[in-house]
């Protein structure tokens, strides 16, 4: 009896101390993350210019009005194209690079150095990457058209051609994301047991079949993770694509995040901006849920 009370006291003291321990982090997150998140949902039901005292409750009107705001469908198309395009490009390139880098230590080039080199763009900021690529794409003075000209071809108007500009923005974004996926893929490749390859070779599998029937299935979880993290990263991007293209030509490369920023600071339509933010939050939450499910399942794989 005495002993039980003793443990109870001990547990209660621990609980009290534990609550004290989480307090700083909890208060900070509550005030600056949770409250604003709740508020963005609340604001999406109001018409408000962000300054005046009274705001008008309009129900779902903001959401209903969204599709008719200027360039909404262009924005939706651009955002989807950007996210999908960036993800596909990043996954393809980083997978091939990771395969080349893995190669079971047979190469002559220094693997560690190569991996680090591919990683460098990932540590540069979006502002930096955006400005560099904007300059590189310049029609008259950029290095890309310089190379194209020296190869004897006609220069390309990267930033003022519908469709092509979408690709230009995607390429710049992909450049800054490839390194991350290379590292994740490499970790995946290195965790494939050599015995699997040996067994398959003994069964007569050639190089292509080894890749197709051993590497690819074993890499499925890494591929999923990379697809999800890259698509989240591209849905979130703001300054990099904006600096490269400025949303031009027309509205063809203007993204959802850039629209939110516009509604917040240029047009002062907080209600409709919040409605757009809610869409973004829901979108990213859905992708992350998918990621969580995959990560959980991956625990069993390894």
């Amino acid at each position, binding site marked *: 009896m005495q002993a039980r009370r003793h443990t109870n006291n001990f547990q209660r003291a621990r609980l009290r101390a534990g609550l004290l321990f989480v307090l700083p982090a909890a208060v900070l997150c509550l005030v600056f993350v949770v409250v604003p998140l709740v508020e963005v949902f609340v604001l999406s039901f109001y018409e408000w210019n962000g300054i005046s005292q009274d705001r008008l409750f309009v129900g779902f009107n903001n959401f209903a009005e969204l599709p008719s705001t200027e360039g909404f469908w262009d924005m939706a198309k651009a955002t989807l194209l950007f996210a999908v395009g960036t993800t596909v490009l990043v996954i393809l390139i980083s997978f091939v690079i990771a395969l080349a880098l893995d190669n079971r230590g047979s190469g002559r080039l220094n693997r560690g150095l190569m991996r680090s080199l591919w990683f460098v763009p990932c540590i540069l900021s979006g502002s930096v990457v955006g400005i560099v690529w904007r300059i590189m794409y310049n029609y008259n003075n950029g*290095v890309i058209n310089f190379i194209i000209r020296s190869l004897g071809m006609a220069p390309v108007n990267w930033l003022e051609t519908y469709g092509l500009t979408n690709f230009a923005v995607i390429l710049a974004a992909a450049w800054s994301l490839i390194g991350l996926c290379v*590292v994740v893929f490499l970790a995946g490749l290195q965790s494939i047991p050599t015995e699997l390859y040996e067994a398959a070779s003994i069964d007569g599998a050639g190089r292509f079949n080894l890749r197709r029937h051993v590497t690819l299935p074993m890499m499925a979880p890494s591929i999923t993770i990379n697809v999800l993290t890259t698509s989240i990263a591209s849905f979130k991007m703001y300054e990099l694509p904006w600096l490269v293209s400025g949303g031009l030509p027309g509205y063809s490369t203007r993204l959802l995040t850039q629209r939110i920023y516009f509604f917040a600071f240029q047009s002062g339509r907080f209600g409709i901006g919040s409605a757009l933010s809610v869409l973004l939050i829901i979108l990213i939450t859905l992708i992350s849920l998918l990621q969580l499910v995959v990560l959980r399942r991956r625990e069993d794989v390894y």
Partner: protein
Amino acid sequence: MKRRLQLSRLGGELMLLLATLVMLIPIYYFVIGAFKPRLDIVKFPLVITPEMFTTGNFTYAIKKMKIVSSLTNTGLITLTSLAILVVGASLAGFAIARVQHRFFKYYYATVIALMVIPFIGALIPIVVLIRRLNMIGSLWACVLIQAAWNMPFSVFLYTGFMRALPSELEEAAYIDGCSMFRVYFNIFLPLLTPVTATCLIRCGIGIWNDYLVSASLLNSVRQPTLMVAVYSFFGQYVSEYGYAFAGIIMASLPVVVMFLFLQKYFIKGITAGAVKG
């Protein structure tokens, strides 16, 4: 047969080398460009000769970007929010990992859920909130926002790390009558170096490179951070390439130099959460 295999290996190596060189063009281009006058950047973008060499771009960019004040601002914001993060997250992670109570389970689930929410999604109410607190233009606004928005991921890191530590570690200490704080301070804290390194690097890069938070909450002319300065002086309508390149180099240099020395930690830090272990 063997010869052919070696030949194809060699081909693969060459392709890899070529791909790496192409990938490096942007970096090479702006690094050499920063030391050349504008005309040479345009006419000979891929070479640099001693005759071209100039440091004038840097002199200009230092003035234009108010480098002293923008570096101070970025440095202060980064260091202060990192300090808050490490203390807050290691304490919270310790409690979540070591106290068995359903409150901490819910708390942890909330943390995980918050981890993925993008800052821009809550940008509008945050601007409203900071205005209401009368903190627009205060570095503290940036510090608090950065600490708060990086907190979920940091708590996740610390919790995972401490859950993996054996519970025998502190049992003897509790029996000897140590308080939980003593256990945290004397037994856990010294063991946390690896996870702290991961957390510092991951969050540090994000905060250093941030544009959105400081652009929304500070006055970009009077108190720019490095990335805001780079953005507002050389963004959108840049025509003076050399100045922009010099500015870019100065803004990225601290992170890149640290990367050179701590590559392993960087790669681990940035991919933490996506790769196990």
